[in-house]
């Protein structure tokens, strides 16, 4: 997988839009979920997803280790989302009550299955840091060292925090096994 990704990145750096298109296809699910869990807003997550891939396309030449693309694009997505959250919070502070009310309830895409909705609603009850950790750690292509680098914390903290976040999630979802399996 890493070699294939590295090859696609190499070609995309040379300007091959089709290769970057395949990278987008492979990572949209991950990047969208990351943005959704951070912002808790489906529409905002869609925009952030687009913004992340555009930033990635423009800055791709600066990526020296081609196989490190997943962690690199996740870092861009995280920073872009954090900036968007910051901007939204500032808007709320200056009294845009309408948008503040809009974001009290997290919005999810209508196409999600009932099990996915239950899972996402449970994840929303975790802290912003735990939501990021859970999302990054379950992405197969990232090691705990890479997650630590993205989150700017130690690998040990990642492991301990992830364990705690999973426990919290388990407590929230206790008794919903059957609904989750549907």
């Amino acid at each position: 997988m890493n070699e294939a990704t590295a090859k696609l990145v190499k070609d995309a750096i040379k300007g091959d839009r089709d290769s970057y298109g395949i990278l987008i296809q492979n990572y949209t699910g991950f990047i969208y979920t990351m943005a959704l869990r951070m912002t808790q807003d489906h529409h905002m997550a869609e925009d952030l997803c687009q913004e992340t891939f555009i930033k990635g396309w423009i800055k791709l030449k600066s990526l020296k280790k081609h196989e490190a693309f997943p962690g690199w694009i996740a870092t861009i997505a995280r920073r872009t989302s954090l900036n968007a959250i910051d901007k939204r919070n500032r808007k709320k502070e200056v009294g845009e009550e309408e948008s503040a009310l809009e974001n009290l309830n997290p919005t999810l895409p209508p196409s999600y299955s009932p099990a996915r909705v239950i899972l996402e609603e449970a994840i929303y009850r975790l802290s912003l840091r735990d939501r990021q950790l859970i999302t990054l750690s379950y992405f197969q292509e990232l090691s705990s060292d890479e997650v630590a680098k993205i989150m700017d914390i130690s690998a040990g903290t990642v492991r301990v925090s992830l364990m705690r976040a999973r426990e919290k999630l388990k407590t929230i979802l206790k008794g919903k096994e059957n609904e989750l399996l549907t």
Partner: protein
Amino acid sequence: MNSLPDNRLEATIDQLLASSVSPGSEPEGLHIGSMPSRPEFQWMYVLYALVGLSISGFLIVQWLLGQHLEEIDYIHLFSLNGITALFSGVSSVTLATLFGLAAAGSLILPEKLKFMYRTL
């Protein structure tokens, strides 16, 4: 020790979490638009700058050739006295201000660069 339902719940959560970030997990209808053109290095500006410098250089050389440079006493001009005379008009306050500004700049610049890096 975990009980059997606990294990089942954990396994279900793990499975759902992994599939929620896998390729194809994005919502239906989510489409990433086409990518813009990458900003290219402006080679024409480099060319303009080179042409401008060449013309300026040519004009300066022409002007210098007309200044009878062979009559200038270079040994005196580049002597210690000649160089220190250049600074005679600069007060110690001015030098201290310049040093202060340079020090403040060197302190602020790395922070600014870090901030720019974080915002990218």
